[in-house]
């Protein structure tokens, strides 16, 4: 390759790499303080270890916190008297329970124990729902016996977490709050219609509230006998839930949907999906549903995932014993220290610099060429992780480091093999050819194994491990492609060099001896 062509290609690749790396990693204020450029890295969604989580305490009806009780008592007068009259202190002292909630016929202490046991059962159901929601982390626990503390990742990217993007902060907070809101819905899963079906407790409640009456279209058939599963699906940018019916459910829904679709029998052509007393999805029914499963499309991925987790649990007979309320959701700082994400990024950067320094020290200008492709590798990893929408957790960062080790290891393996060939007296051209040939199968084997493992991790696992699988998948593909790109760039950058052995930091025994 000629000097000019080599210089042009090197300049183009170096500029593109620097630009990708710069915009991938560096955030900065734009002139005039009008706005701010947040790097691609700063826009990747972070897990709870890096950006904290959003939590709230769910309280069943009739249970209040000690803080609320104490605050009322501090007011004195009628309010204090009312609270003192209405509530009884729960064991542990963290909550107060409305006496009306407790079973009047049993001993008060026993009633409190029974209430705590039911709340504990609900916490287990909630844990199942959050586990099915495919979150990178979550936490569900009974707090002080009578409240359920639930926490989900805040979903902030670094720009949002650090306060550079306040709009995204409220969007992410709403999304986290909505997940908690959906999954903590109490009551049974029913399919309803305004005209067709049989009366049940919800109908009575609607009558009492003077609201629109609805009827249970599955009649006396329990949800767990009618539904096999409710799963999330995504296809070509369309998100939704896939509902699978049992033979009995299929028969009953077929009969009901035929009646609802017939305008002569029902004025309401909608199948309404209820959990408890809340209508969540209205499904327009224009014809009889005869298949064993059917899909409902939902506006966005997050809502579809929440519906799937909620419906799957409630349709499986895991309804909550109580309806839960919560005042507010709180976005908490990171338990490992507020600046964990920054320091983690700095440590990865230090490691990257160490790898680059090693490469340059050992392979001279070839090390510089490797550094350029390593920078490109990092930029590609950051950009693709952002584009795919993977949430970056601490284990995800470990996996990215593993991918960097794979990329560096494979290149150094080839370089060492070439050094051996060169030491044995081959010309550099022959040594490169033989060296890459000798390491080809090993490197291919490694990447094939890691590619399949990453696909398995992504598809089989959930949450953080699935995210790690995706990062490994990106890393493995990038590592293999850029391994060969490194060879190409080696060829390009080395072409104008007079002493090609010196360029690589290699020596040639035969040539040295000859000299």
């Amino acid at each position, binding site marked *: 390759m000629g000097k000019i062509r080599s210089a042009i290609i090197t300049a183009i690749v170096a500029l593109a790499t620097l630009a990708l790396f710069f915009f991938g990693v560096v955030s900065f204020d734009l002139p005039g303080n009008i706005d701010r450029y947040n790097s691609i890295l700063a826009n990747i969604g972070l897990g709870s270890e890096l950006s904290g989580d959003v939590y709230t305490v769910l309280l069943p009806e009739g249970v209040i916190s000690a803080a609320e009780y104490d605050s009322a008592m501090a007011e004195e007068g009628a309010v204090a008297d009312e609270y003192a009259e209405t509530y009884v202190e729960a064991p542990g002292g963290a909550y107060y329970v409305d006496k009306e909630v407790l079973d009047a016929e049993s001993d008060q202490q026993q009633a409190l124990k029974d209430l705590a046991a039911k709340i504990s059962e609900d916490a287990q159901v909630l844990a199942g729902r959050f586990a099915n929601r495919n979150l990178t982390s979550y936490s569900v626990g009974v707090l*002080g016996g009578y409240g359920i*503390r639930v926490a989900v990742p805040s979903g902030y990217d670094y720009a949002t977490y650090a306060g550079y993007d306040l709009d995204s902060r409220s969007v992410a907070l709403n999304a986290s709050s909505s997940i908690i809101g959906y999954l903590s819905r109490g009551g049974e899963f029913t399919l309803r219609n305004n005209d067709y079906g049989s009366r049940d407790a919800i109908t009575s409640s609607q009558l009492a509230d003077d609201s629109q009456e609805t009827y249970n279209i599955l009649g006396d058939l329990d949800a767990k006998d009618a539904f096999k599963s409710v799963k999330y699906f995504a296809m070509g940018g369309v998100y939704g839930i896939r509902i699978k019916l049992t033979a009995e459910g299929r028969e009953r829904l077929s009969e009901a949907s035929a009646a609802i679709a017939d305008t002569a029998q029902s004025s309401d052509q909608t199948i309404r999906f209820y959990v408890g007393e809340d209508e969540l999805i209205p499904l327009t029914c224009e014809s009889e549903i005869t298949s064993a499963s059917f899909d409902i499309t939902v506006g966005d991925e997050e809502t579809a995932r929440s519906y799937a987790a909620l419906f799957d649990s409630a349709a499986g007979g895991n309804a909550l014993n109580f309806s839960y309320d919560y005042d507010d959701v709180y976005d908490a700082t990171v338990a490992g220290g507020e600046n964990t994400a920054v320091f983690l990024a700095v440590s990865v950067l230090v490691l990257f610099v160490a790898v680059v320094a090693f490469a340059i020290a050992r392979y001279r200008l070839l090390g510089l060429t490797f550094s350029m492709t390593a920078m490109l590798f990092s930029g590609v990893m950051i950009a693709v992780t952002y584009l795919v929408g993977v949430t970056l957790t601490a284990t995800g960062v470990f996996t990215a480091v593993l991918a960097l080790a*794979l990329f560096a290891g494979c290149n150094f393996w080839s370089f060492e093999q070439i050094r051996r060939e060169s030491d044995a007296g081959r010309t550099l051209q022959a040594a490169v050819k033989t060296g890459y040939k000798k390491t080809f199968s090993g490197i291919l084997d490694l990447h094939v194994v890691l590619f399949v493992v990453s696909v398995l991790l992504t598809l089989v696992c959930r949450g953080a491990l699935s995210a*790690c699988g995706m990062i490994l998948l990106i890393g493995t593909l990038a590592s293999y492609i850029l391994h060969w790109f490194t060879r190409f760039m080696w060829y390009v950058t080395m072409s104008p060099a007079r002493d090609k052995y010196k360029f690589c930091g290699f020596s040639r025994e035969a040539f040295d001896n000859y000299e």
Partner: protein
Amino acid sequence: MNKLRFSSGMLVYAIISAAVIAAGLVLGLVMHFTSGAFFNWGGEYAGFRSIEVQYSAFDIKEEDVKKAAEDAFADNGVSYYAFVTAGESTECRIEYRFASSQDAEAVAKAAEAIDSAVGIDSNFTGHATAYTELAAERNASVDITYAAIAVSAAVVFQFIYFLIRFRLAMAAAAFVADVHNLALFYALLALTRVQVTPAVVAVSALCVLVTMIGCGMMFDRMRKLFRTDEYKAMSSFEQADGAARSAFPMVTLVNAVVFAALLLMLVFTAIAGGTVFGLFMPCLGAMLAVLASQYGTTLFTPAVYSRLKARADKRAAEKQIKYVGAKKSAEAAE
């Protein structure tokens, strides 16, 4: 080139591995029967005690709340392992988390002391509540099951792939390496009582991945070397030793890069905050995984492989003798 004889230490490696695994198993079982936890489960699985302080930023500063809390903890002899802050203006909160081993009564007394410092006793509107128990409902077995399914599928795939690409003995040795390293990793977790959090469960995949990278590099080197006449003339043990010696620097380099990265993360995240709870345990778990993998891949696996190869060679030789013998007999009969 080092002169290590990896294959000759089979007995030593087997004893070390068996001792570590047995010790982990015994300690885990003892802890299981005494405190109900084979591993030292983290807060997400085992729960924790907590004190939540609510206060208004208009009333009192966060630093003053923290100082009151620190004083209360010191007076009552309790220590928290993590804290988070949340909310803003009139709805500020600080949650202190205590291990379940901390005395519930002392935690409650500390909360009372904080309450008197931030509440109406001090003319403020704050409140401190002690939650003597948070019974976590997150099921570790579900997380471990999913991780186990994925890791098992990966290990089986690796076995099949190595069987096709390399030889049965190499595939078997890689399989043994995966299982051995994973067992060693879990034994080390039980022994060191590193808190097992969901991130640490995810790290078990890292253990297998690093092992796979190491085995891939080593067996590729072996396959190449076995083609040379010099190696063909050697015994299985010498062959395995030579190849292991040759692959040792690269395998060690990969593990060293990952280990150094973890160490750096540990140091930097320790600087990042007053508490390193968030990343300390995953980093420590991952470092154990890399150590288990380095030991298992570079020392134990060549020793296992050399024996498997010796048996395979012996069987092949017997087959050859049998075949040649049968051929000679047939010729004689003719």
